C-alpha cells in the first residue's frame, strides 16, 4: 500500500477547476467533484449546461424554491438563470456531440497516459461486461472541445488511477485534455503527461510515486494556483 499524501479537499479541487474555465464559455459539469465547481463560478459569465436538457442552469435550489420539474442530471433541484432554455434530452445530446460544449468536467476512475478515460464501470460492482451506468459520460467525453477529468489521485487502497493503460472499461479513447487530482494538475500532451502543478508540501517525486506512467515535469512546475 502506497503512502497517502495530503492534497486538496474536494472543494478546493472544484475551485482549481473553476480557474480553468474562461468567461463567455459553455460548460457541462459531471456528477461528483465536478458538480461542486458551480459553487465557484457564481457571478461569472459562464453558461452551464445540464444534459437532461437545460442551458444556463443556476445554483442548487434552496428548500423554499424547489421546483419539482427542475432538476439537473444528478437529480438535484436547481434553479433558472436569466436566459435559460429548456430542450429535450435528445437535443441536449445533439448539442453535446455537435461540439458546442467548450469544456466538460468529468469524474474519472482511471485516466491513461494517452488520455483514455474510464469513468463509468467500477468492476467492484460486479455487473456483466457492458452493463452499468453509462449515463451521459461517453457523449460528453467524445463531444466536448476540452475534457477535464477530476478524481482523487489514488484508490482507497493507494493504487494509481493515472495509468499506462486503463484496466477499467473505457468511456472514450484519447479524450482527456487535463487531469486534476487532489495532488496534481497534469496536462495530457502528445509527448506524454506533463506535471504542471502540485499540492503544497509535495514534490514531483511524491506525485510520480503514485502515478504509473512517467511524468514529464513542466519547466514552470508550481504549487496549485488557487
Amino acid at each position, binding site marked *: 500500500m502506497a503512502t497517502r499524501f495530503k492534497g486538496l479537499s474536494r472543494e478546493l479541487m472544484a475551485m482549481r477547476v473553476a480557474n480553468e474555465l474562461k468567461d463567455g464559455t459553455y460548460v457541462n459539469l459531471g456528477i461528483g467533484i465536478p458538480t461542486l465547481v458551480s459553487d465557484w463560478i457564481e457571478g461569472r459569465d459562464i453558461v452551464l449546461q445540464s444534459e437532461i*436538457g437545460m442551458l444556463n442552469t443556476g445554483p442548487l435550489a434552496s428548500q423554499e424554491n424547489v421546483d419539482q420539474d427542475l432538476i439537473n442530471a444528478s437529480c438535484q433541484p436547481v434553479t433558472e438563470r436569466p436566459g435559460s432554455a*429548456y430542450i429535450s434530452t435528445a437535443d441536449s445530446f445533439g448539442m*453535446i456531440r455537435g461540439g458546442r460544449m467548450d469544456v466538460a468536467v468529468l469524474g474519472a476512475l482511471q485516466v491513461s497516459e494517452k488520455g483514455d478515460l474510464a469513468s463509468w464501470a467500477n468492476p467492484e460492482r460486479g455487473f456483466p461486461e*457492458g452493463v452499468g451506468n453509462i449515463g451521459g459520460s*461517453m457523449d460528453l467525453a467524445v463531444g466536448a472541445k476540452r475534457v477535464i477529468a477530476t478524481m482523487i489521485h489514488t484508490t482507497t487502497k493507494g493504487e494509481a488511477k493515472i495509468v499506462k493503460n486503463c484496466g477499467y472499461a473505457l468511456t472514450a479513447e484519447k479524450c482527456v485534455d487535463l487531469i486534476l487530482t487532489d495532488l496534481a494538475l497534469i496536462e495530457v500532451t502528445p509527448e506524454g503527461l506533463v506535471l504542471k502543478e502540485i499540492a503544497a508540501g509535495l514534490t514531483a517525486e511524491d506525485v510520480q510515486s503514485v502515478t504509473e506512467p512517467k511524468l514529464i515535469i513542466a519547466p514552470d512546475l508550481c504549487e496549485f494556483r488557487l
Partner: protein
Amino acid sequence: MDKVVSSADEAVADIFDGAIVAIGGFFTAGTPTSLIQALARKGCKDLTLVIMTMGPGNPDVLQLVLNGQVKKTISNYPFYRSASQGADCCFEIMVRAELIEVETLPMGTFCEKLRAGGAGLAAFYTPTGVGTVVARGKEIRKFGDRDYLLETAIRPDFALVYAHKGDRMGNLICRKTARNFNPDMAAAAECTIAAVEYLVEPGQLDPDTVHVPGIFVKRVLEVGRPSYVPGL
C-alpha cells in the same frame, strides 16, 4: 378528434405480453407514474422497457420487476449510483441472477435511437462509444478522419409519456426539465399514451409552444399535478 380516456387502466388496456414499452422521465422528473402503476395492475409479461433508469427516482418501475413482468431493459443509467442501495434493489439482484437482460447505452445514443425511430430513419453514425464496449458487434466507419459507430433506430410498440398540459387532440406541452425523453419517445412509439397534469380544449395551447404534436399521441389521460420532493 377526442383522444381522452377516463382511466389509466383503460389507457394501457391493449399493451400486450412481449411488448416494447418506452417510459418517459429522467429520475423523478416527468415520469408517467399512474400509467406505470396501471401497467403493473394489468400484469402483462415479458416486457422490454426502454427507460432511462430502473430504480433511482422511479419506485413504480420496480413493482414491474417484482411482478416478474420485465424481460429486458434498454437504459442508460439503469442502477442506483450507490452500491449499497443497489445491493438491496430487486432489479440489480435479478440482473446479477441473469433473470433480466440489460442493454446499456450512452444517454445520447439512447435518445438518438428513439429520435431516429420517430423520424423514420433506419440508423445513424455517431462518434459516441467508439473504442468502448458499446461498440462490440457494431459497425465502425470512417467519415473524414474520424471513426463513427452505426446505431439503429428503436421503434417501441408503446410509449408512456408525461406532460404538463395536453389538449384533447393530444398536443402536449412539457414543463422545464420534465420534458427530457418524453417528446422523442412519443414520436417513436407505434402507440403513445400521455398522462397530463392539466387537460385543456383544442385552441388553449399556444401552437408555437407545443412540444409534442397531437399526431404522435393516441390517448390522453388527465392525472392532475402531484406534489413530490425531487431528488434520489
